[in-house]
């Protein structure tokens, strides 16, 4: 926040500044104000300020025009600042013995011009105080803004929207030998030097030689990087940092106007960064992640209730079933309606407008036949598998959650009833939390799931993958215990207390489209002391992956799997490869 005080006005008596917007209000004490240097005569255009994204703090900008002003900067901690809607006006008033009237002001963002205009040093001070030395060093340098010399020294060849990102691709003279970041005009989005992939461009090299613009022998003038799609419609700057880091030059602005083309975006990224399977998790983040990700905004859903009312005299378990791509498996819901008792509610969550009518009608036109309280959620956007489960969990009414894929067929619910009881018993006894997975069968009575293990896979770059032991073998061959320990269990059918799920923050949405988030959830639960078990019980079928094919083509699907796998390994490889954590799958059969 930048405050301008008219020359001669006394501020010593002011104890602070108060910002209010609706029910949100904060005060910044006078002692936290940093006086900025003289602002070129004090008659410049109003200088609003800002939200320096790279810092741990943000400030609500305040704009006030006054001649010969003194300028002060006040940083606001991000948690406080985030209570304000930046698109709305803010009521600003001074805490002073003779307080004036509050002024309604619009908030606007800081720009590179502001940094060049003397704000940089003060902002660096704020960032430094918040522990962001890197950001402080950058902003605190001498800052200049220069226009891009297009097409002589720079050319943007592609700006392509895909997933949640924009792929930028082109060339910038001599970028190979320089430290160059990319930043949005509001400085909220930064693409670091490391994330900008350089490529050799002999054609450009020849051109630059002709222009007498070469500064080194390197022909790496090509660049490719990915910026968040939120930048669409803004200006972009290349931020060149001098070798001694004393000078920072913003080259721009460059208007960002991208068209969606998933295939082209993928082709550019593959060409620049290589096959995803050759990349580490950090490299995936810089290249493919945005292209393979779905939007993660605030989630909300419409709620429709069907069937009998929830019993008030006893706890219920909530069976959460996300639907995407194929409403055929409403048949499994109809089946559940006939086998579950009144200790359950169903929470169906639909992410997919293509099947909404079919799912809705499947309940609405069957409402008199529903025996289990059924809550239907219509997500306002596609939040992915993890998001759908998370929002459904938050809107479920049971104390025990069953996370269930739509392609699970429960022929015998006894295992579910027992698991819910055990989870509640643990709670009552104050014991360790329990996460229960189940033996799941294919339609031919072979094993689909008996718990997960994490072997390395050469097909996945030697990363640890989630494996299902005994998969595809006849169920009769299992001779182990009816309850077996596991490191993790599939969320195709998983039971745990709602408390535990909430404490864990639900599924981590960094995993895209239904991969690895269940293993991750289990391992996080273990870290918190929970016990993971597989309950072996016939009558539970998983018609695995029946709804996955509609999630995109096989190539994209496999890239998403790799991305999730790389992320999972980044988090858990060390933990899972500890010798003591080696997981024994089953007791070998005794032979006579």
């Amino acid at each position, binding site marked *: 926040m930048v405050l301008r005080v008219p020359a001669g006005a006394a501020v010593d008596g002011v104890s602070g500044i108060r910002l209010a917007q609706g029910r949100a209000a904060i005060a910044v004490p006078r002692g936290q104000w940093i006086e900025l240097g003289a602002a070129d005569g004090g008659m410049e255009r109003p200088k609003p300020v800002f939200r320096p994204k790279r810092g741990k703090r943000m400030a609500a900008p305040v704009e006030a025009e006054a001649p010969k002003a003194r300028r002060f900067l006040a940083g606001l901690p991000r948690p406080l600042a985030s209570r304000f809607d930046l698109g709305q006006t803010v009521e600003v008033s001074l805490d002073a013995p003779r307080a004036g009237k509050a002024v309604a002001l619009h908030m606007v963002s800081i720009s590179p011009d502001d940094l060049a205009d003397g704000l940089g040093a003060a902002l660096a001070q704020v960032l430094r105080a918040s522990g962001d030395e890197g950001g402080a060093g950058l902003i605190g340098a001498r800052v200049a803004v220069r226009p891009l010399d297009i097409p002589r020294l720079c050319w943007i060849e592609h700006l392509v929207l895909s997933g949640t990102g924009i792929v930028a691709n082109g060339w910038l003279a001599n970028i190979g030998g320089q430290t160059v970041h990319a930043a949005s005009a509001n400085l909220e989005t930064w693409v670091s030097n490391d994330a900008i992939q350089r490529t050799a461009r002999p054609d450009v090299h020849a051109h630059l030689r002709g222009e007498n613009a070469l500064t080194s022998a390197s022909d790496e003038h090509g660049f490719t990087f990915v910026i968040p799609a939120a930048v669409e419609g803004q200006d972009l700057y290349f931020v060149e940092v001098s070798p001694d880091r004393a000078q920072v030059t913003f080259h721009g602005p460059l208007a960002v106007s991208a068209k969606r083309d998933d295939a082209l975006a993928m082709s550019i990224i593959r060409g620049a960064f290589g096959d995803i399977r050759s990349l580490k998790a950090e490299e995936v983040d810089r290249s493919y992640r945005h292209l393979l990700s779905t939007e993660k905004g605030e989630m909300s859903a419409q709620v429709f209730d069907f069937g009998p009312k929830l019993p008030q005299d006893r706890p219920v378990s909530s069976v959460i079933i996300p639907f995407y791509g194929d409403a*055929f498996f409403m048949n499994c819901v109809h089946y559940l309606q006939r086998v579950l008792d009144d200790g359950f509610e169903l929470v169906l969550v639909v992410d997919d407008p293509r099947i909404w009518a079919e799912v809705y*009608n499947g309940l609405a*036109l*069957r409402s*008199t*036949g529903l025996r289990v309280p059924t809550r239907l959620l219509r997500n306002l956007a596609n939040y992915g598998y993890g998001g759908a489960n998370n929002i459904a969990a938050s809107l479920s009414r049971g104390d025990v959650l069953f996370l269930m894929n739509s392609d699970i067929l429960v022929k015998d619910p006894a295992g579910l009833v027992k698991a819910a009881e055990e989870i509640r018993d643990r709670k009552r006894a104050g014991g360790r939390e329990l996460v229960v997975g189940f033996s799941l069968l294919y*339609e*031919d009575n072979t094993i689909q799931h008996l718990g997960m293990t994490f072997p390395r896979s050469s097909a996945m770059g030697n990363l640890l993958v989630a494996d299902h032991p005994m998969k595809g073998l006849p169920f009769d061959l299992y001779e182990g215990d009816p309850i077996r320990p596991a490191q993790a269990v599939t969320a195709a059918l998983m039971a745990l207390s709602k408390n535990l799920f909430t404490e864990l923050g639900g599924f981590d949405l960094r995993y895209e489209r239904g991969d690895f988030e269940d293993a991750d959830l289990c391992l996080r639960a273990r870290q918190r002391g929970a016990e993971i078990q597989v309950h072996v019980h016939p009558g539970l079928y998983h018609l695995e992956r*029946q709804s996955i094919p509609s999630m995109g083509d096989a190539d994209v699907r496999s890239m998403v799997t790799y991305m999730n796998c790389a992320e999972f390994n980044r988090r858990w490889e060390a933990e899972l490869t500890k010798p003591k954590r080696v997981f024994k799958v089953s007791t070998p059969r005794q032979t006579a």
Partner: protein
Amino acid sequence: MRVMVLSHGHPDLGAGGAERAAYSLFQALKADPKVEKAVFVARAEHDAIGHSAFFGSFRSRLDEILAAPPPVDGLTFQSQNYDLLKQLIHELIRHARPDVVHIHHFIYWGLDIFELFKEAGVRVVFTFHEYAAICAHFGQMIKTNGRLCYAASPAECSGCFPSISAGKFFVRESILKLFFDNVDMFVSPSAFLKERYVAWGVPAERIEVIENIMDQDVLGRSRTLADRKPLRVESNRRLTISYFGQINPYKGVDVLLEACASLPKRVRKRIEVRIHGENKHFRDSEFGRKVDRLLEETRDVVRMMGAYRNQEVLSLMRGSDWIVIPSIWWENSPIVIQEARMAGRPMIYADIGGMSEKADTRVDLPFSAGSPGALADVIGYLVEGDMYVDSEILQAHVQARLNLDSENYSHHITLYLRETSKFTERRQLAG
């Protein structure tokens, strides 16, 4: 005792063996003074009802109700509007007050009807007419490549329908079995059909083999004809072989036509093949075009006789020397076999399933199902060989079939009485 017979169609609105069997049962129940009330409920298109209500009566007959239930999912046979179906079924139960409902098919109605009747305390009897629960290929147990299917499994069914996963077939099977749990007793018109359902998972003790009841009108005509002698085949006239039934890809009309086309001229001169039936649904299909082509090739032998009324089937059969049943699917208990028996005519039959079970090899001639060459051999043998048909056996069949119908009816009544004697809590229906 009050009995409701529920069918997927009314035989006078679309002839099919199952509809006719259901209606014949209703006729017999209606004529039985021991039965307090018999009601026939047939699913019909809304147009056939003639007004906007979901119910109507057929030709103003108050005990023949037409109903237009909501659509049914084509794969799992569950109603797509359960609430409306429930409302319709409850209205039927409330007003007809059946002790027993004998359901002759769930198609067009939805499997939910089993549950709805059961929950309302009505005993549920269900007759299998083909393999609809087992096989998604029109319930015929013929693979989509034309081969006979001997047993279903989710993976194999998916092989016939690659766009439907094995898992979905597993769901289909599970749902069918779940709803079949509401059936108190199954009836199979043939032992062969029962075997298939037992192999699929229905307990043998829950299936009784009882032959379908014959049309009472046809039976009456049979009695008046029973004392007549079978036609003698003189050498100076053409041998007449007749086909009766729908013209569709499963009844084997094309096999018959191909057999005729392959016959040598000298044989063709001595036979006449009559096709009694209509091609209603396959006129514009590849099958329809094939039939048209073969008819053109066999104009000297084959006569298209067109559709026929049920009442005249026996006299039409008696106008023939042999009845041919060339079906390429297993069949169940084709009503045409019963009719041929009553008409006192021998049969040429495809040697599989229910046809094989019902044939009498002393008088009937089998051929390898689906083989035009094998059928041509049989026809050639009839014309040029020294074939003798024991008319006494055929006459005995006529009488036996008449007696058998009474027995079959009696089995039905015994079954109903046994079921209704079991304690059932009658649920009070709302409204």
